[in-house]
């Protein structure tokens, strides 16, 4: 590795999806913890809703979309459980429909190490954390407009509540010259949080429904997380039962350890599909100031990475006086004094799924391209990927 001026840390990456109605509570909880850095991604949670027809003539079930925010932040591993508990309690994420919170291990490379208020974290996020459940997150990237179809199928099966975000494709398209305008840049990124045993089924449905085994249709990968709260409410609306059906289902899921019991068996489904061994794939997320990630993706691709999807983020910092002003931290006070403008809150991220064997080469390439230089606010985050599926010409179809 040839990284220079860069710090690498092993951290816990926590992701929290919160309905827009409660996202302020999450933000307040994180502000209390004085987190030095967090990123917010706009998204929506999709559920089915029973609606009464016009003048009360019967009812119909439609897909309902609720605005949400996906908070991404890093904490030292020892504080993971406490922070998740604190946030989940602050926003009542245990109630169905509010959101989910989960964590995974991440290696984070950046220019300067993040400084945490240990005393505060210890005081506010201490105590018995409670058990976290092993879940799988499946992240599926499809053409804009496809996500609703896929989400609807998953919801009808009662598997999980899909979370959808908008992004932009950055793979082959950027190498076509002006012809790129003929290829839609808009993508949708769908996250499914399911018990690990449901992951294969969900992946099969996603590949089939979104035609991921055909060229140019998209990509799906999965990783393991430790979930503290998962939004299980796949259906909302008028109910005749005292307890909601989802609550009953959730209890049975819990008792049986998965949702296997309520699944129909698709004919001809392969029971044991060969998948990549854990640890052979890595997700490298590059986070930079808005407008800059493109050149680092190009560097990573030069080093062997495949396509990527760009997602805009908002940066926030809850440390020091600057946090209250809502501005980003500036490492160089002299530069800040010279520059009359504001520090930017706009960031963007690209997730690249690469074989573990080329990780060092990719990290070296982005380092060489200046990811950790001042003004870029660059972060390279590496997490384990269990499996990835897309079409490749070599395999004549699906690649895993």
């Amino acid at each position, binding site marked *: 590795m040839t990284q220079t001026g860069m710090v690498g840390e092993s951290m816990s990456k926590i992701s929290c999806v919160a309905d827009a109605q409660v996202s302020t509570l999450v933000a307040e909880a994180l502000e209390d913890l004085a987190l030095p850095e967090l990123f917010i991604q706009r998204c929506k949670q999709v*559920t089915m809703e029973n609606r009464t027809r016009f003048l009360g003539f019967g009812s119909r079930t439609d897909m309902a*979309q609720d605005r949400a925010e996906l908070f991404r932040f890093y904490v030292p591993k020892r504080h993971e459980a406490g922070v998740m508990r604190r946030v989940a309690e602050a926003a009542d994420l245990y109630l*169905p429909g509010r959101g989910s919170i989960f964590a995974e291990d991440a290696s984070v490379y950046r220019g300067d190490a993040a400084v945490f208020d240990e005393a505060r974290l210890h005081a506010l996020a201490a105590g018995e954390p409670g058990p976290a459940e092993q879940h799988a997150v499946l992240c599926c990237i499809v053409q804009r407009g496809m996500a609703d179809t896929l989400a609807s199928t998953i919801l009808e099966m009662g598997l999980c509540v899909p979370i959808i975000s908008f992004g932009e494709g950055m793979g*082959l398209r950027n190498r076509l010259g002006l012809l790129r305008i003929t290829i839609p840049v808009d993508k949708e990124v769908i996250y499914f949080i399911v018990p690990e045993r449901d992951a294969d089924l969900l992946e099969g449905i996603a590949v089939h429904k979104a035609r991921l085994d055909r060229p140019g249709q998209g990509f799906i990968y999965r990783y393991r997380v430790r979930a503290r709260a998962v939004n299980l409410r796949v259906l909302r609306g008028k109910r005749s039962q005292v307890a909601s059906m989802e609550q009953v289902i959730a209890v049975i899921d819990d008792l049986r350890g998965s949702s296997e019991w309520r699944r129909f068996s698709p004919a001809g489904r392969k029971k044991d599909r060969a998948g990549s061994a854990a640890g052979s794939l890595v997700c490298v997320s590059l986070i930079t100031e808005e407008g800059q990630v493109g050149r680092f993706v190009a560097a990573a691709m030069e080093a062997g990475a495949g396509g990527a999807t760009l997602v805009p983020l908002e940066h926030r910092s809850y440390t020091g006086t600057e946090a209250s002003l809502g501005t980003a931290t500036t490492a160089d006070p002299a530069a800040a004094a010279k520059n009359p*403008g504001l*520090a930017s809150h706009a960031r963007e991220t690209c997730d690249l799924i690469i074989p573990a064997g080329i990780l060092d080469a990719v990290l070296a390439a982005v380092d060489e391209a200046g990811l950790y230089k001042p003004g870029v606010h660059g972060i390279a985050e590496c997490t384990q990927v269990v499996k990835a599926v897309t079409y490749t010409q070599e395999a004549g179809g699906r690649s895993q």
Partner: protein
Amino acid sequence: VKSFQQKRVQIPFGRALAMVGAHARSRLGTQARSVVFVVVYLLLTQALVFRVPIREGLGVALGIAATVAGLAFFLEGLFLGIMPLGEQSGLGLPGKAGPALIALFSVVLGITATLAEPAIGILKVQGGAVLPWDAPVLYLLLNRGSTWLVWAVAAGVGIAVALGMFRFLFGWSFKPFVFILIPILVAATFILERIPSLKGVMGLAWDTGGVTTGPVTVPLVIALGVGLSRIVGARQGGASGLGVVTLASALPVVAVMALAAALAPLVPDPGRAAGFFSPEPELRRKALFVAGSEAALGVLALEARDAGHLGAADFGYAFPEGLSLDQETTTGNSTRPLAGHFISAAKAVLPLALVLIAVLVVFLRQRIRGMDEVILGLAFAVAGMFIFNFGMERGLAALGSQAGAALPRAYEETVRVDRAITVRGVSSAEIVLVAGPQGPGRFVWIQGASGAELVPFFGENWNPGTGEYRHVPVESAVFSSLGTYAGFGAVLVFVFILGLGATLAEPSLSALGSTVEDLTTGTYSKRTLMHTVALGVGLGLAAGFGRILFDIPLFWVLGPPYAAALVLTWFSSEEFSAIAWDAAGVTTGPVTVPLVIATGLGLGAGASVSFGVVAAASVFPILAVLISGLANEARARRSVAREANL
């Protein structure tokens, strides 16, 4: 730092052509679907309801095809070139510039946008029929003072863009702006409408606000705001970045009202033509101020005399020495030459783009992202606007004019001069008295297509010496059997559906819809926004034309809806308020406005009265979007609250 250049993939020519073809088909298909409703509607109404043949069918068809192609190119240019430039400027400015420089940039951008805006010209066309003695201030603003009008509007837009940018920079709430501005504007309208010399200008002032925020300015300002608010951090909700269009619609109204109020003491009071052309020194001085010169006043007087507004005696009294002027009649072509359209399109797009490119390259020292794409986008935008303007004039606007001209048939009789016949052998024996509710009337027997017909007799059409009688058929109103009000009702239904259909083809609304969909991650879709706004525009047009038909003061058409909009804004979230009020500014664009004006002129409304329709078409979409937003938010709140109460 090493820079990496991704290797270019070579696509074979045939495959590349297929890719371009598929892309073009998709874009053209989308635009064709957006205009098909209004085209089919206009054709069917004209052919089946008013039973008027479509004139210049081939030209109209070609025009509609050009409109579709123009819209497709323009929107592609908007998304590839103009909006990315705006967003990059918004993202780059706060990092390099202080508030003073941002204000300066915003004012320059606002002024450039207005000066380039072609829609101001549309207002001048609409004002072509204004008589100087009827509404002297209005006439002055649309003729000799049109430069003052444009600069007043430009100043309003410039200040609005600056205020909008400051709002994002300092995190000011959107609502206070509307709570302060709109009541002031409505109250000013109420007061100024009572001043005879300013009455006619109020409609113009409000329309200017709606019209100046055109198809280039709106997407650019939206992209700029979105970029800027991303830098600052969106703490007020996802859709922050919007709201500038509202200010850019409202402040020009203030500017035009102020300009009109300043000019009012300098012009004669509205009245008859004889008074306007009076030779009394004080009145003559004021009339000269309106006309601009002795020669121009003379031309006006001659026109007034020829049109019968100024009697021969009054003319002689006004100009005792007579007039010997080389009157240049501006007959003019009804259609603009192609070069004119091209210059207008280039003027609308390029100055704005150049301002942004200069700021990015010279001031911010930034490389323009996707330069090739931006240049292609700007070329598409100019080409698109050129083809679109040409197509609108020959296609939709022509169709709208024909349908508009046929509209009065809904509620009044039509004298069919084109079907006049001369019958011979008419003597006094053929003229009979027929009893009627208003007493007996004279009728005459003539030979019609299906035998003898008894038709109303007009003495001036009869030559007793030769026995010839010229019969001009009169067709009764289409809805005469249902009464006059049914005819008026039919007109209002017509304009409602027209507004609904035309709005769906508006390019600015499409750009706003895409932005809102992106900002809300699709929870408030472009389709929902466009349909809601279209419904509002339809209702607004019905209200605006209702005002013309029933002679309702402008205040009563704008006041109550704005009051309702303010109440709903109070209860709405910050972001839906901004979406709703911005929707008002973008609705009245290059598709709706020409159709509205064609319809207004078809109805034969006095020019000064027909102003205000665009303003009415702007206020109802605010109500529609606010109501839709409140319903959306209530559902979201309920869904979270329900679980908490379990």
